């Protein structure tokens, strides 16, 4: 359609609740109402999904039309006169909601003692089979509850008919209880229309109708990619992410970028108790319109909250014992050791998973103190960015500064003929941590625990925002490298804080551009297999390999 024509049509008007409202052709009554700031209750309709008119709650009165129409599926027409609310409409909506709730465990919704019950018993109730709100993981964001309150429903006149479907929780990451499902079909639509996957559909007939996969296979054996968008759009507690279902309201929601691979998906981190509790896309799915991968969507909490995380700086004393210490002492110790070597005897192993600022700070350390001996490991391949080097240099190296110790295979270690000292800067202990050459172990943060930026595919530099507190005294990699660099006191080392690093990156963008990217199908974070810390990811990988022979994200 030509712009002029479109503009022309856009001036059409109709009347909603006695007020004139303009609309574009193709707009439904619901869309016109929403644009005009008029609320119409819906359960099946969402602005980011095609409408089906299945829940019937959005009924409105159109002058001259017999009965009531569903506003989500009825297109607006010029001069249409619509009433979205009246006693009669409210009464009908209450009746519809009562019918929906007669098949949903809803006793708590209209229970007079719900508030005290939820205040005291709910926090410790993490039920398998949900029989009421105080046991339901969705109770804080339940759309059924919001509607019960909006319509002032006090009683459900119909007997409760429990569907008695078995709980579905044999899949990794995902719990399903279709006894809570109201058959709104949002999950099916987001999977089919927005993502083009169609992993699920309505199956069976009549009262037995439910959402399921073909042949009722497990999702992991079907075409589901575990992006969990179905969970995001579900108005009930029928679908949930098992690892992230019980924290209730998060203390904060922080938009950031997932840097598990080069894609750099925008992600919102839910935080509670200062820890990452869940990760999900921004609420309006029409913005993203593509599926998230299971790594960013489901693996972050377990990957980052594992109790084995390195917490406190540790150094090797003269008597050979490793002891915990504070940062000042640890940095002094490391600087003292490094100062005994000449630059050509030092090498730095950086990590592709670090933020731009951390990569820059390690680069600077290497440039000033290690003759730019900085390398990366990408699937066992040794990569020297920026500079023409080969692993020939390794035979002169006496001290290694590792930011990704777990990637270092024995085979690579053997190339270092005269190694005397190892500095480890990492998030988890690795087999190398127990080597008697290790002189310091420095705890670093993961990307949800720091601010910064990350250069992703297509040269897009994206913001990283701190969402959680690091464990113990862990600090960002750029800060550790900066502290050591400054302690060594070369006038050439000018890195100080995040701001100066970011300014330097602006001026020398090639230092970052030369760093290899993490491919989308990577199964590791900073050299650690994700499945070592996320048991359901292990299940996912194993089942996928078994049923499809390959894994893609």
């Amino acid at each position, binding site marked *: 359609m030509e712009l002029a024509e479109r503009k022309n049509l856009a001036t059409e008007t109709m009347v909603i609740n006695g007020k004139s409202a303009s609309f574009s052709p193709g707009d439904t009554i619901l869309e016109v109402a929403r644009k005009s700031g008029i609320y119409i209750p819906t359960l099946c309709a969402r602005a980011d999904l095609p409408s089906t008119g299945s829940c019937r709650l959005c009924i409105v009165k159109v002058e001259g039309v017999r009965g009531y129409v569903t506003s989500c599926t009825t297109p607006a027409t010029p001069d249409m006169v619509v009433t979205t609310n009246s006693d009669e409409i409210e009464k009908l909506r209450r009746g519809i909601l009562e019918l929906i709730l007669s098949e949903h465990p809803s006793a708590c919704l209209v229970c007079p003692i719900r508030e005290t019950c939820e205040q*005291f018993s709910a926090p410790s109730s993490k039920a398998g089979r949900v*029989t009421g709100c105080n046991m339901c993981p969705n109770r804080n964001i339940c759309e059924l509850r919001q509607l019960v309150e909006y319509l002032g429903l006090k009683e459900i006149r119909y007997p409760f008919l429990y569907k008695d479907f078995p709980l579905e929780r044999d899949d990794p990451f995902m719990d399903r209880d279709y006894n809570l499902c109201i058959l709104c079909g949002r999950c099916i639509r987001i999977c089919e229309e927005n993502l083009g996957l169609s992993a699920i559909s309505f199956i069976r007939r009549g009262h037995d109708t439910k959402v399921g996969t073909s042949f009722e296979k497990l999702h992991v054996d079907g075409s589901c990619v575990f992006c969990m968008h179905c969970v995001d759009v579900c108005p009930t507690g029928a679908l949930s992410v098992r690892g992230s279902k019980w924290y209730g309201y998060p203390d904060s929601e922080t938009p950031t970028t997932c840097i598990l691979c080069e894609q750099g998906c925008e992600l919102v981190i839910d935080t509670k108790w200062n820890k990452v509790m869940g990760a999900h896309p921004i609420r309006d799915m029409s913005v993203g319109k593509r599926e998230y991968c299971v790594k960013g969507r489901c693996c972050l909490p377990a990957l980052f909250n594992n109790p084995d995380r390195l917490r406190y700086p540790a150094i090797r004393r003269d008597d050979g014992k490793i002891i915990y210490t504070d940062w000042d002492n640890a940095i002094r110790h490391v600087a003292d050791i490094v100062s005994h070597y000449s630059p050509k005897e030092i090498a730095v192993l950086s990590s592709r998973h670090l933020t731009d600022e951390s990569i820059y700070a390690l680069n600077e350390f290497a440039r000033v103190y290690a003759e730019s001996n900085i390398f990366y490991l990408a699937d066992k391949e040794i990569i020297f960015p920026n500079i023409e080097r080969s692993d020939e240099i390794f035979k002169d190296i006496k001290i290694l500064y590792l930011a990704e110790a777990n990637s270092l295979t024995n085979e690579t270690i053997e190339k270092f003929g005269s190694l005397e000292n190892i500095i480890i800067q990492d998030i988890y202990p690795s087999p190398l941590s127990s080597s008697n050459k290790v002189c310091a172990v420095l705890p670093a943060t993961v990307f949800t625990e720091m601010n910064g930026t990350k250069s992703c595919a297509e040269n897009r530099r994206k913001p990283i925002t701190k969402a959680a507190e690091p464990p113990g005294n862990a600090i960002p990699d750029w800060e550790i490298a900066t502290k050591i660099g400054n302690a060594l006191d070369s006038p050439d080392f000018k890195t100080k804080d995040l701001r100066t690093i970011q300014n330097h990156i602006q001026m020398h963008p090639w230092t970052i551009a030369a760093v290899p990217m993490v491919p989308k199908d990577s199964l590791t974070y900073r050299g650690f297999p994700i499945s070592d810390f996320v048991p359901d990811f292990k299940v996912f990988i194993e089942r996928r390999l078994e049923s499809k022979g390959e894994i893609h994200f």
Partner: protein
Amino acid sequence: MFELIEKSEIFNVHKMVIKAPEIASSIKPGQFVIIMGNEYSERIPITVSDWNTDTGTITLYVLELGISTLELARMKVGDSLYAVTGPLGVPSEIKNYGTVVLGGGCYGIGGIYPIAKACKEAGNKIISIIEARYSSMFYHEKELHAVSDQVLYATSDGSKGKKGKVEDVMGELLEAGVKIDQAFFMGCTQMLERCSEATRPYAIPTKVALNSIMLDGTGMCGACRVSVGGETKFACVDGPEFDGHKVDWKGLNQRKSAYTEQETIVYQSYSH
């Protein structure tokens, strides 16, 4: 050891019949066991609802409310529990009170049965009042009927008996002039508190079986401590039954949610 002989689910309440001959032959009404599904489980105190010395089995009704009970819920007949310790706690005081009301909700529907049975044998008139959200959530009914003079029901949706809770049914009895000489209540803390408040104006002696967090169950760790009449008591060795009119409910509720963070985070790295 501790083989699972029978297993079924009634709306998140899991009936578990477990081979434990030594416990079956020594347990008394009102006592409990502490069970662990596997060696990494939390220790869960569970009231023993029934036992059979011939088969050497005990019957437990376990609510799934966290990871350790989830693991129990997913066990199958033939599996063995890692540990079943008991009998623990002080048995209920069984004597001829006259008319005894027993109120049960959730696991308490099964939990009040042995107390009802023993009180019946001691010559009491037994009125059992059980509550659930829906009529389909009741269980262990036949057994309870067999030892009760009267079984009354309360449901949230009114689908069986009175629409409401145990205390609503009991309130009707009291208003009708029924004299209650002793009351026992078993269920969630909210229910215990509400029922205790309902008997207070009538000065009916009221025993409530508390369900605080426990570790060893022998009075060593103090995790289950509760304030009763201003005195600190251990639910495991001084209880589980206490005077419902003297329990510090607020303190009990606070202690019960002390590990919410850990109980929530453990789901992140859990896999079936």
